[in-house]
């Protein structure tokens, strides 16, 4: 699905990812764990194509196409989606306006509307929130739900969830996790998290551990349990 070849990434002068080689297999669920500042979000950003990060070396492939130089929106059109760690609020722009534009030519506006209502109900998002400017006055959990709702409409092939479980209360986490568990079918999913709790629902096929910009270890889900109990020392 996505493969990273000798990937080194910097922001400004600082090198953040160091020579990463990894292949994400189709329709598998990956969990990416690691201490703060280890480069997890950078990895997400570089796959999506954030302009502040520079690829120093290496390449990113999506379904065998080299996407290293591709614009953000074109990557998204290919089926890459990032659920942001800290979603921004957009004044005057509703989630409908955003998705109508993003899906123009693919889905009728009315269908977009219907689907938004459908998923909002499923994700237990308040109606006012949908009608308001995106993320305007939304709580942490509500913001994450709105991210997941966008994913549901955009139907990506590769879904990155950057700390979809932080700043979220227990009920919201359960709603999101149960939804994602159903949604993950036929998709490749990369969950970036510090906690084991969401992985209980989502059952990753692989757990990757990133430390200092390198993938230090890859294992099955027991690795996540181990980290939860004993911390990252277990890796070294």
């Amino acid at each position, binding site marked *: 699905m996505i493969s990273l070849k000798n990937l080194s990434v910097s922001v400004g002068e600082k090198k953040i990812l160091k020579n990463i080689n990894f292949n994400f297999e189709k329709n598998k669920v990956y969990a990416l764990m690691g201490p703060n500042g280890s480069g997890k979000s950078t990895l997400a950003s570089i796959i*999506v*194509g*954030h*302009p*502040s990060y520079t690829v120093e070396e290496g390449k990113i492939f999506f379904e065998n196409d080299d996407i290293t130089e591709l*614009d*953000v*929106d074109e*990557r*998204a*059109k290919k089926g890459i*989606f*990032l659920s*942001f760690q800290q*979603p*921004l609020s*957009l*004044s*005057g*722009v509703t989630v409908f*306006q*955003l*998705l109508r*534009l*993003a*899906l*123009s*030519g693919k889905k*009728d*506006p*009315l269908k977009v509307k219907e689907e938004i209502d459908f998923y909002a109900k499923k994700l237990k998002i308040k109606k006012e929130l949908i009608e308001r*400017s995106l993320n305007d006055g939304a709580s942490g959990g509500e913001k994450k739900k709105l991210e997941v709702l*966008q994913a549901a409409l*955009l139907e990506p092939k590769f879904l990155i969830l950057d700390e979809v479980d932080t700043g979220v209360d227990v009920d919201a986490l359960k709603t999101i996790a149960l939804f994602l568990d159903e949604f993950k079918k036929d998709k490749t999913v990369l969950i970036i998290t510090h906690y084991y709790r969401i992985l209980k629902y989502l059952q990753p096929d692989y757990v990757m551990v990133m430390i200092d910009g390198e993938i230090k270890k890859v294992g099955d889900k027991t690795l996540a349990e181990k980290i939860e109990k004993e911390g990252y020392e277990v890796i070294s």
Partner: protein
Amino acid sequence: MSDDLVFDYRYGFKVPENYVFKSRKGLDKKLVAEISYIKKEPKWMTQFRLNAYDVFVKKQMPNWGADLTAINFDDIYYYIKPTDNTVSSWEDLPKEIKETYDRIGVPEAEKNFLAGVSAQYESEVVYKSIQKELDKIGVVFLDMDSGLREHPEIVRKYFGKLVPPADNKFAALNSAVWSGGSFLYVPKGVKVTLPLQAYFRINAERFGQFERTLIIAEEGSYVHYIEGCLLAGEKIITDQGIKNIEAIKPKDFVFTHQGRYEKVKAVMIRKYQGEIYKITPLSALNSITLTKEHPVLAIKREKVLTKRKPRNSWLPEVNTKRLIQEKPEFIPVSELKKGDFVIFPKIKDDSKKINFEFSDEEMELIGFYLAEGSAYYHKQLNQYVVTFSFSSKEKENIKKVIDLIEKIINKKANLQIIKEKNEARIQVYSKTLYDLLVENCYRHSDEKKLSELVLNQKKEKLEKLFWAYFKGDGNLSIKKNSSGSKSYLYRLSTASSILAYQIQMILNNLGIFASLRLRKGGEDKILDRNIKRKDQYIISFTKPKKWSEIRETEDYFIVPIKKIEKEFYQGEVFNLEVKNDNSYLAKGIALHNCTAPIYTTSSLHSAVVEIFVKKGARVRYTTVQNWSHNVYNLVTKRAKVEEEGVMEWIDCNIGSYVTMKYPSCVLTGRGARGEVLSIAYAAKNQHQDAGAKMLHLAPETSSRIISKSISRDGGRTSYRGLVYVAPNAKNSKVYVSCDAMLIDERSRSDTYPTMKIKNRQVEVQHEATVEKIGEEKLFYLQSRGIKKAEAEGLLVNGFIEPVTKEIPLEYTVELNRLINLEMEGSVG
């Protein structure tokens, strides 16, 4: 010399018989007098112009605000007589303007207007019918020249009283050479709910660069702007078959009243609250629902009657010959009655894009398939199966289908007779046939529909398809008429609503008007068995045509309206803007489309707008300015608001080279309220110096100014505002909010707010922000698959949303679209 001329004119200016006015550049007293002479104005107006000219000459250029030094007053045409208009065609316009308007779609009518080609166009009809409504309630809505001619006493009382020539150099210039503009008088207590739009005014009368507008709203009156749109769910004919209006996208092709496909320029959605009308023509399923002012191509029954008196309670009889000869007009739906006629344009072969031809056999088989076919993939056998089921009595059809299959795929189909069911089943394994049928008509009976490829076949081919379909599914009943002659009623039914409309389209193509109605499904009992019946769509037509209620011309069918219902609606409505023909067909009925903005090619636009809002009256004045980028747009707008009156200015400036415009409210009566909502957008080489003026001269007055400006690509916006609260204006309220958005580092925004508050009992609120369009926000939107330029447009439109939500739809859409275009244009 020029003084002599004035003297002469005042006492009967001696003009040679063959006097011809010649348009010329530059301004002098003689020209001012000539303008007044040509317009046959009263003497006081001539004098007013001449005095204003003197003021103009003496007045200094404003030494503040935008840079106006490059204006060359000698290089401007101040008056062009309509008959020798120098621009003779659309092609002569500046390329930039043409492109912009081609992209956003200016109605042909306005193109013609602009080009000085005074053609006959449909909107004039709309204008006239609105004019009639206004006459009834005593509202005067004229171009300013006619206003002066027909209502000299009112004009004299108000003209130049709020913006006297001495106000500023450009007001003086306008006063000297004004031409065109609007005169609107609303009598006491009259609330105008009809759409009063500049669009109608333009079509009625020339629009100039020195136009003058005077609005008088008498005590307790009300004027505002609205426009017409369709409800969701309406079926529109496009080159890809029939679609719901909400599913139509810009660049789709829709069928117009001219019987051809034209490109959709824009799709508009807005919230609507008010009356809607449902018109049901003879063909019940072709009923459409519209907002009340939406123009429909129609013929009024009263215009085509016979001389005979109506019998019993019947509708008066129609003279068929006159009906056929009468030219259909666009009439607002609210003016149509039962018995009037709507127009179903005929679909002709030359409007189709035929890029592939099916064989006759294929078309016929498709017809049979629509009636009796099904197709599926047999997993175990790994075979594609196509099946036709007939009653075993339909020998002819059975033979025909087997024949057709053999001709198409050169393979003998298997025939199986199921005796106990009296069923004959024709079955064949063929991927080719499966693909042909499934790709062009889908699989199950209630979702069957024809592909675009099939619908775009030539008439002769469609004929093959239709009659095959009819043989399979249709029935024919013969009726003897009183005169002994026979008429034939052809009937078909299908569970697929789309197919029903498509068959109606095909029949239209074959020159037959078929009507559609619905037979509701439900529980039913047949031979003691409970069955559930699906909704059935019934397609029917009568032959010979004289027994039908439908009349036709070469180009369209004329169909009587059977019912008109009115109801209250709250929700979203849709409309389309269509290139060239300005119309589209909703369920086959021709409708007029939306409106578009004002523009000119001149390099100096200097208008004056004066509005008198009397006690308890309310006026809203909306402008979306998109002048070409070489225009100095220097406009004086002022309203006087009396006790409890309300004045709302909504002012959006996108185009022009330089704009200086500060709509003002002079609040003279207790409790008067003024509001200015403004948007300024400045791109490369543009300076928008805009703002507002609020003068509180009475107690308990309130004002609100909301200004939003956007600068990009080196453009500059300035907010310049003055709020004055007089010593006596106790307990007044002032609210000022100005927000600026900068798209890049090179652009500039300044704020010059001035507040002169002369008493202490005033509530003042002032907010100002400057923000940069955030990289992170752009990244966020792009990560959803939105292009950078579109993302910027979305953010900018979000930024101005507090203002745009107050604006009537056509302007909002226009504005959003223009801004999106500007964004698009500036990238790459």
